[in-house]
């Protein structure tokens, strides 16, 4: 038997032991186990052994054809979270979600019940007093679904084809940026959009809306997918590299000078900070109210123009 055959056989044996653990709900499965399995599966024989064991498991438990079983989904979701560096912030339990959904329904009902009980109690207490009247008005603030507020960014080619600039992770230097917004909150009447690009000489601010001579945020209204009345030609002021777009939906307008001053105080590495950290820094330096919305979108500018679909090698979509 040649050494390669011995290696393949050993890999297959190891992978069979690993897949048995992977499929056993009583056993733990760590990132190290997952990496080890990936490494072993580089061998075609071991990969086939793994695939056969998985296919058998799926057939035995009656999972939907071509999809991981529920048990595999649990394993895979947990490993994906670890790979993404997500810290556990709450117990992994679908039941907690159901509980949350249930609470969303139950909480307003309980609140209404409590208010009615108070009103009833008050009316009973004041029944003997002919001048008494109930002063409570309305039912207080009930929990409503969160209104949607957000900026949409698309890349547009010279011939008018549009692609998503954020989920595709890239826009092309020779293309244009097209913006739209959705605003379901009447209190947010102003929008300020700018881009940041880290360069060798430090962070560079690229004003988008308003432009420096426009003075302050643009007025916006409520509605869905409302276009901003301009497009930005990237080649005019932007350069290749990472691009962080920041949209500020605010109740009061913000001046260009205020934003410029706040951004000069930021660390030059700020555009590459995690969005949550960056937002916190921005809120420290700008006169933003707690209900104002800061949206941060990361993408990158790459050379050329987006290729037409169905070409041999193209960017999304």
């Amino acid at each position, binding site marked *: 038997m040649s050494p390669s055959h011995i290696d393949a056989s050993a890999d297959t044996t190891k992978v069979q032991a690993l897949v048995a653990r992977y499929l056993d709900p009583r056993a733990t499965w760590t990132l190290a186990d997952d990496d080890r399995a990936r490494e072993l599966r580089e061998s075609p024989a071991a990969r086939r052994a793994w695939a056969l064991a*998985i296919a058998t498991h799926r057939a035995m438990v009656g999972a939907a054809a071509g999809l991981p079983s529920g048990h595999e989904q649990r394993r895979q979701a947990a490993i994906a979270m670890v790979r993404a560096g997500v810290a556990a912030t709450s117990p992994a339990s679908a039941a907690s979600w159901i509980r949350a959904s249930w609470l969303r329904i139950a909480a307003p009902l309980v609140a209404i019940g409590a208010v009615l009980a108070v009103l009833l109690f008050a009316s009973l207490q004041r029944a003997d007093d002919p001048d008494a009247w109930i002063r409570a008005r309305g039912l207080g603030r009930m929990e409503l679904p969160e209104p949607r507020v957000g900026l949409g960014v698309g890349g547009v080619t010279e011939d008018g084809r549009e692609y*998503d600039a954020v989920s595709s992770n890239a826009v092309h230097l020779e293309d244009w940026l097209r913006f739209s917004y959705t605003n379901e909150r009447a209190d947010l009447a102003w929008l300020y959009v700018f881009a940041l690009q880290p360069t060798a000489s430090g962070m560079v601010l690229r004003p988008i809306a308003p432009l420096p001579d426009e003075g302050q945020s643009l007025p916006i209204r409520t509605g869905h997918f409302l276009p901003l009345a301009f497009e930005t030609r990237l080649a005019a002021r932007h350069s290749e590299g990472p691009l962080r777009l920041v949209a500020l939906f605010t109740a009061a307008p913000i001046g260009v000078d205020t934003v410029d001053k706040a951004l000069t105080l930021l660390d030059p590495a700020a555009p590459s900070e995690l969005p949550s950290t960056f937002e916190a820094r921005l809120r420290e330096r700008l006169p933003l109210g707690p209900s104002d919305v800061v949206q941060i979108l990361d993408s990158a500018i790459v050379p050329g123009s987006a290729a037409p679909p169905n070409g041999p090698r193209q960017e999304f979509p």
Partner: protein
Amino acid sequence: MSDDLLRDDAVCREAFRKGERWAMEAVYRRYVPLIYTVVSRGFAGFRGFYDAVQRDDAVQAVFAAAFEERTRLAYDGVNDYARFIRGLAQNVCRQILDKDRRFARTPEVDPDDGHEDLEEALLAAEALEACRRFRDSLADPLEQAVLDGYFARGEAEETLAAMLGVTRYRLRKAIAGVQKKMLRFKQQEGLA
């Protein structure tokens, strides 16, 4: 279930943005069929991964990317999340194709050989029949429910215990029992 979980469920969306595990599990379970479609059938000029293991690896890579804080916060909550994660999946597939020397366009099994899917093609007809026999062999309704709810659909222990009206301790015993029966059956039948 809503058409688009993250777009339509504000509580889940906020929890997902904050990185809460329950929300990410819900997102995984809701969108995993879509991602399997992308990695199996491909898009544009790419015809999808034929290798079942590579499909699984690609799906995990897509969700690992989707769960990163930067990506979670990039979703605007206005447009369909399905569209967002599909675009992300296409990018991840491209990255895999760019760096993975293992990838080959020639399938290991012929997709047109009459099987329902590639997994069934990997298993012999006798093995598939044996798997069906195993499912039928579980006479205890609790064990049937465990096989279906816990192993196939992936219900959480807490949820399944409540649905079946049993304690978690009893459910865990039943899960362990089913697992043992599966192992024994595989040994008896000589299954992988």
